[in-house]
């Protein structure tokens, strides 16, 4: 699994390098899973964490379970949600797997679900594009180009 994930990323990078994967910034597609509007919020270079956002669509004909994410510059990545409690307080919660049935779509967006990237070895800067791979319990990794930006695309 680790090996496969690594291989997928290496392949993705090689393809991206060749310009084959450059569909559009922030977009990526396995044939059945589509990632769109993928971006990371730009933060100061000394920031210990970063948040990532995207939309994921299951265009295939079987259910998948999103489990987490991996990125070269992050020692750790998790699926998080920001919840608002009854008295208006906000908290982050660790999400378990997210199931997407055929035709389903999930949005990770500011103030809601986000990819939480931690233990950063490097903080990519606004304007850069970096690969982040979504991992699944029952599907190959899906790697997408995430644009580092100040605001939602």
């Amino acid at each position, binding site marked *: 699994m680790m090996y496969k994930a690594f291989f997928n990323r290496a392949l993705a990078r090689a393809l991206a390098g060749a310009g084959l994967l450059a569909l559009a910034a922030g977009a990526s597609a396995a044939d059945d899973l589509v990632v769109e509007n993928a971006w990371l*919020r730009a933060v*100061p*270079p000394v*920031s210990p*964490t970063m948040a990532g956002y995207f939309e994921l669509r299951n265009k295939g004909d079987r259910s998948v379970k999103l489990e987490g994410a991996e990125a070269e510059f992050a020692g750790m990545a998790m699926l998080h949600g920001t919840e608002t409690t009854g008295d208006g*307080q*906000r908290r*982050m919660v660790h999400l378990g797997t997210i199931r997407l049935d055929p035709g389903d779509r999930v949005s990770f967006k500011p103030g809601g679900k986000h990819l939480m990237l931690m233990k950063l070895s490097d903080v990519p800067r606004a304007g850069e594009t970096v690969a982040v791979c979504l991992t699944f319990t029952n599907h190959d990794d899906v790697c997408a180009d995430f644009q580092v930006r100040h605001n939602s695309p």
Partner: protein
Amino acid sequence: MPFYRVLAGRLGLLTLFLALAACAEPRQELPVNTRLGGDFTLTDHRGEAFRLADQEGRVVLMFFGYTHCPDICPATLARVSQVYRNLREAGDAGRVQPLFITFDPARDTPAHLAEYLPWFKADVIGLTGSEADIRAVAEQYGVVFLKSDPQDGGYDFTHSDYVYLLDQQGRVRKLYPSDFNIDEVTDDVQSLL
């Protein structure tokens, strides 16, 4: 006091007439929130004592957060910074002060805040202190925060995330949600200058 009130009333009327004369909608003065707020002393990102009362004569935009929070906190900082830059362009920078108060003094030391905040290019003053001091300030402003149990990725905070507008006397005049409208806040600040 009565004289002051009369004067304030006259000035209010004068402002109203001027506003009407300019064909603008008369602006409601922002009410003073008497339930929240008050003076406090914390430590700024240069490691020096910071007293709110020393900001007298400046309008303050103040909010709480922590730098390990990647989602709401940097977004709020960026929005407050945008308000500040708008005001700076209008020539009002010296009369407005953004304040960021951390919930997380263990990780948000003055040195870390001093590295983190300048990136937002808004002369934000970062404030930290002992946990007890920070909790006391939070209570004054009706902010609740709760540290999560540490787990693999560290710890987080459950917290309310209002932005506070304080007038030149340090009184709370308005609260905004963290995804406030930038133009609205810019206008509100200007109404207090």
